[in-house]
């Protein structure tokens, strides 16, 4: 149960890193990546996965 970021669509804006309650998102070579081990899909913190809600590009933060 985790989300991932489609690297070729990521603009590297960093909005997801800031919103992630699990500190699961880090920058890697100008784009961002989700650590699947830390990702909780925001369960217990928010109704919706925060990375997908704030990402400016559609269908870029998606379930693995």
């Amino acid at each position, binding site marked *: 149960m985790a989300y991932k970021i489609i690297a070729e669509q990521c603009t*590297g*804006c960093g*909005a997801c890193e*800031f*919103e992630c309650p699990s500190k699961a998102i880090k920058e890697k070579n100008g784009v961002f990546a989700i650590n699947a081990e830390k990702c909780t899909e925001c369960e217990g913190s*928010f*109704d919706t996965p925060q990375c997908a*809600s*704030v990402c*400016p590009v559609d269908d870029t933060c998606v379930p693995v």
Partner: protein
Amino acid sequence: MQGSVVSLASIKRIAALDRPAPVAAGCPSQAGGVDPRVADHPCYSEEAHHYFARMHVAVAPACNIQCNYCNRKFDCANESRPGVVSEKLSVEQGLAKVMAVAASVPQMSVVGIAGPGDSLAGASAPKTLALFEAVRAQLPDVKLCLSTNGLALAEHVERLKELGIDHITITMNAVDAKVGEKIYPWIFWQGQRLTGRLAAQTLLDRQLLGIEKAVAAGMLVKINSVLIPGVNDHHLPEVHKAVRARGVFLHNIMPLISNPEHGTVFGLSGQRAPTNAELEAVQAACGIDAKLMRHCRQCRADAVGMLGEDRGQEFTNDLVAAKTEVDFEARDLYRQLVAKEREDRKQAAKRAGLGLAQMTHGQKRRVAVCTKGGGRINEHFGHAREFRVYDVDAGGLSFVGVRRADNYCQGGWGEEDHMEAILKALDGCQAVLVSKIGRCPKDELAKAGIEAVDRFALAYIEEGVSGWFADQAQLNKITA
């Protein structure tokens, strides 16, 4: 001083020969009735932008709303529009860039943060505030300013005020959610992605609250509105009324940029940009003061330089030293020179006005001017990327606006296409005043009914335009 190209070395040389008397604070020659907080701000004062430059520092990549006219993913160094940058900077890199520009561009009087995302969005706000803090400490003589979509403004007003930010710009395109929902597909608010009318309503409510708080805190608030034909063209007078009622001091209406190659929703859906005439009509319907805000260039979120020029490529991360010493004496000398030059221009404009007032005939004419700053006709036609347009008659000059002829990516465009863009920009003008022009373009302009005039090279704009008008009136008298 001719034009905007002034090096610090040359300032020291000029100043050694002819050092003007220091100008007392609040001297009327400096501001001419403009609020002293923005008297030297090129984006707010049409007059100031002849002398001062701004830089935008792209430390705010994240955004909390989506606008249908924006696509931050696309970047091209030749492209000039908001939301676009070539490189994103950390706070340290941003500060290094600011110091490097301050050291080599004495005109730089304003440091702004305008994106490429939103300066106050969740991930952007800490970086924006940290950069402002650092610049405030290192460069006390520059003004700080901020552009935001307003969603997260209300909760930041107090901190911004503490940091000495006394003017901000909010982009606001509607006050009615029925209009807003056609512009904003979603917003990110309190941990949720909102869509549809609720998104628009939440954004508009937060924008108005932000405006009210900022005005109450004593800040000067400017509103930018993007004119989108068929979406908010008839609605903008209502926006104007709503923001004026809340104490906004300037309202700037800008044309939509919607080229399909930018990949924005509007660009891809075929939503067209407004014509110059449509833009002027909406500005008039709002009763917007022509002099104040018709020189906006809709510049990039990492622009550096005078309005209409962008020297950002000279100050990219790999070209900027980690630490630059700034010569404050030279920056001060530049300000003194500008004070003298502004006074000279004011006197020249006054003389030109008196000359025009004596003329009893001659119908109103529209004239374009090529300038690179300093209020003078000092740009070669072939180098001009934009034109300043004036109406002139016996009542004097009135500034119509800036017409850009480079508002697209130039890669792959031939010379002829460029001339076509220029002719479109000069539509309705009877003459274009330049410092120099080649024979071919001069002939082409003549064919389009536009006289190219180079006999007023280096004169102040007011002198040149009134001089040309007087010559026209004289010709009419002879031929009549």
